[in-house]
C-alpha cells in the first residue's frame, strides 16, 4: 500500500492548514459584512478539519475522522442559528454591518 504521506509529507499539510486558518482570521478582522465574517469562520473550521484528517492518516487511527463528523455537526448547527440571528438583526435594524451593532446593552 503506497501511502500518501510518504510522498507529500505531513509538514506540507500543516503549512496549508496554518495559512488557511490565518486567512479565516484575516477575514474576520478585515470585513464589516457579517455574512462574510461567517464565511471566514467556516474557512477556519475547515482548516482544522483538514488537519484532523491529515493527522488521522498519519497515526492510522479512525478516531480523528470520527471527530471531524462531530465538528461538522456543530458547524451545521452553528450556521443555522447564526444565520437566523442575522436575519432577525437585519429585520430590526436594516443592516448587517458589524460596526453598526454598537448599541447592544449587556
Amino acid at each position, binding site marked *: 500500500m503506497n501511502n500518501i504521506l510518504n510522498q507529500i509529507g505531513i509538514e506540507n499539510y500543516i503549512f496549508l492548514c*496554518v495559512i488557511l486558518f490565518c486567512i479565516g482570521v484575516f477575514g474576520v478582522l478585515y470585513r464589516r459584512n457579517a455574512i462574510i465574517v461567517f464565511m471566514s469562520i467556516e*474557512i477556519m473550521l475547515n482548516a482544522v478539519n483538514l488537519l484532523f*484528517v491529515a493527522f488521522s492518516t498519519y497515526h492510522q487511527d479512525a478516531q480523528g475522522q470520527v471527530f471531524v463528523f*462531530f465538528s461538522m455537526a456543530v458547524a451545521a*448547527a452553528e450556521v443555522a442559528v447564526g444565520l437566523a440571528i442575522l436575519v432577525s438583526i437585519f429585520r430590526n435594524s436594516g443592516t448587517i454591518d458589524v460596526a453598526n451593532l454598537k448599541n447592544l446593552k449587556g
Partner: protein
Amino acid sequence: MSILLILFCILSAITLLTAFLTVFSKNPIHSAIYLVICFFSVAGHYLLLNAQFLAIVHVIVYSGAIMILFLFTIMLMNLNKENEVHKPRITRLGAIVSFCLICFVLILIFINSKPIADGSYDVTGEDYQSIKVLGKVLLNEYMVPFEYASILLLVAMIGAVLLSKKEKLEK
C-alpha cells in the same frame, strides 16, 4: 516530483486562492461562489488522503446545505449590491499586519519544533478509514457523543425556527 505532490500543489493553490477571493470580493454572492469552490477543493484533499466517506459527507454538508443557507440569507436580505463601506484605513492596516504576524509566528513554530516525522513512515496496511471501520468506531466508542450530536441538531433547528419567527405586535 511525484504525481501526488503535483496534485497536492494544484489543490492547495486552488484552496488558498479561493479563500482569499472569498474574503476580498465585494459582492457577497461572489464570495459564496468562491467559498463553494474552496469547499470542493478541501473535499479533494480528503479524497487525496483516502478518506472517501468524509469527502462525500463534506460535499453534502458544506457545499450543499451550508452554502444553500448562505445564498438564501443573502437573497432574503437583498444584499447583492456592492455598497459596503470599508473599515477605516487604520483598522484594515491592523488586520493585514496581524494576518502576517500570525502566519509568521505559527509557521516558525512548526518549522522550529521537533520534527514529528523522521522521514521514515511505516505503513501497516491496516484498514482504518473505510465506512465499515468508521461506523464501528462511531457507534461503539463514540455512542454517547453521537446521540448528543442529534440532540444538538434538534435544539439548533428549534432555535432557528424560533429566532426567525416574526414577533407578535405588543399591545
